[in-house]
């Protein structure tokens, strides 16, 4: 699972780099536009450790943001699962708000909270929150009739049991959504760092962008990709472990 994710990323990254070099040598572009392989390698070796630290900084914000999102999504999803007026309001609100590009709100957040940790965290959490919420609401509001029927007709179906049954029956779906939302959380944090932060890999990419240094940008993308692949692989592995442990 973990290795497969890394292989997949390496294949995509190498294909992208190969296409860039094809473009460079095909159109005879200078090293200022697309760096040569040796320059790319040298930059990668020089910046690797620093970018690893930056990505770790970004990832830590993304992970905390994702955890907050998952917790909130489950709370709201559980409240919104019922066909009551509260549930209907929650569902309608979730579907409507998620249609709005949350990243467009980032400038307001930076104005209100400044360009520190909290603003990055909030943007990361907001970006990955709604996809998780929609999945959780979908899972939680869909009865597993064949299992729930007995408990319902004998008066034993408390909300905790209902949530447990629905989560267990849809564990694969929930694990996939949570693993997928890691990308969104990371993207959210990087976008926040592009806009106004003073730390993280997004901030480093912004500096490289101002210097038109594609070698640095490509090196940063490599570290981001590898880190995210490992993180997603770990999430899937944890999901599989939870499922295995829960079933025995």
């Amino acid at each position, binding site marked *: 699972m973990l290795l497969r994710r890394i292989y997949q990323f390496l294949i995509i990254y190498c294909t992208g780099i190969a296409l860039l070099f094809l473009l460079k040598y095909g159109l005879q572009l200078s090293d200022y536009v697309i760096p040569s392989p040796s320059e790319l390698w040298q930059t990668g070796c020089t910046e690797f450790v620093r970018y690893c630290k930056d990505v770790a900084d970004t990832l830590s914000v993304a992970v905390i943001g994702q955890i907050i999102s998952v917790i909130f999504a489950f709370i709201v999803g559980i409240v919104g699962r019922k066909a009551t007026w509260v549930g209907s309001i929650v569902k309608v609100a979730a579907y409507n708000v998620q249609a709005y590009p949350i990243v467009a709100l980032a400038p307001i957040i930076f104005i209100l909270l400044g360009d520190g940790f909290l603003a990055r965290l909030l943007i990361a959490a907001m970006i990955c929150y709604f996809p998780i919420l929609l999945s959780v609401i979908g899972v939680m509001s869909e009865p597993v009739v*064949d299992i729930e*029927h007995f408990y319902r007709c*004998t008066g034993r179906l408390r909300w905790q049991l209902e949530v*447990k049954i629905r989560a267990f029956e849809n564990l694969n779906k929930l694990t996939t959504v949570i693993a997928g939302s890691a990308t969104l959380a990371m993207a959210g944090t990087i976008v926040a760092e592009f806009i106004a932060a003073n730390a993280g890999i997004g901030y480093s990419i912004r500096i490289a962008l101002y210097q038109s240094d594609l070698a640095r940008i490509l090196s940063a993308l490599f570290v981001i990709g590898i880190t995210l692949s490992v993180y997603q692989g770990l999430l899937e592995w944890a999901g599989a472990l939870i499922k295995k442990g829960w*079933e025995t």
Partner: protein
Amino acid sequence: MLLSCHNLTLKYPHNSRPVLDNLSFKITKPGLHALFGHSGAGKTSLARLITGELPDSDKFSSGEIKIGNMKTLLYSYNTERLPGWSAISHHLDKITPASRKTQKDDLITLFGLETCMDQPFNRLSLGQKNRINLVRYLVQDFDLLVMDESLANVDERTREKIILNIKTLYPDRFLLYISHNLLEVAKFCDQIIVLRAVTRQPQCIVVRGQDHRGRQSAAQPPERTMLELMNAA
């Protein structure tokens, strides 16, 4: 105790034809009774209507259902599942009232399920799943239990043994058995409510079954009741 339906009509919203039309029958005493008829005749709908399993049924049904002083009416069916996160024994322990623990153990033995208790539900055969499901309903406090194909995928001999034991253990309860097994219904059930196509009137006919109780011989051969059932359906 009495279970009766009078002029019962049921037409699902968005359906052009009713499922039940002017249906009337009466079951006067507890015991094992049957709902019999072709697929789609309305057996499950009728059973769910009687047990109150159809939400907002008063909006699309009419007629009268009398349940006497019966309080708990349960409907069980053959595709029900137990949660998969722990073994069968754990689930059964949790849903069995303290006063019925011995009864639960007896039923497990009678139904031949001792070896399944440590397994999760999804590792059992279809017949085992159905028997486990029936056990958990039988240990509840009920006045009427509908068993909708509850012994499907169970071999003939075990099924016969289970039916006879249920009849012995629950002589004072209403048990409504839905099955397509003609011989079984004719042989073991007391009153058999035969549901016919909705276009035919009366839509249901009550046939007296053999109500076989083990070794005692039946008053008449089951073939005669079977013929009656086939003609009625």
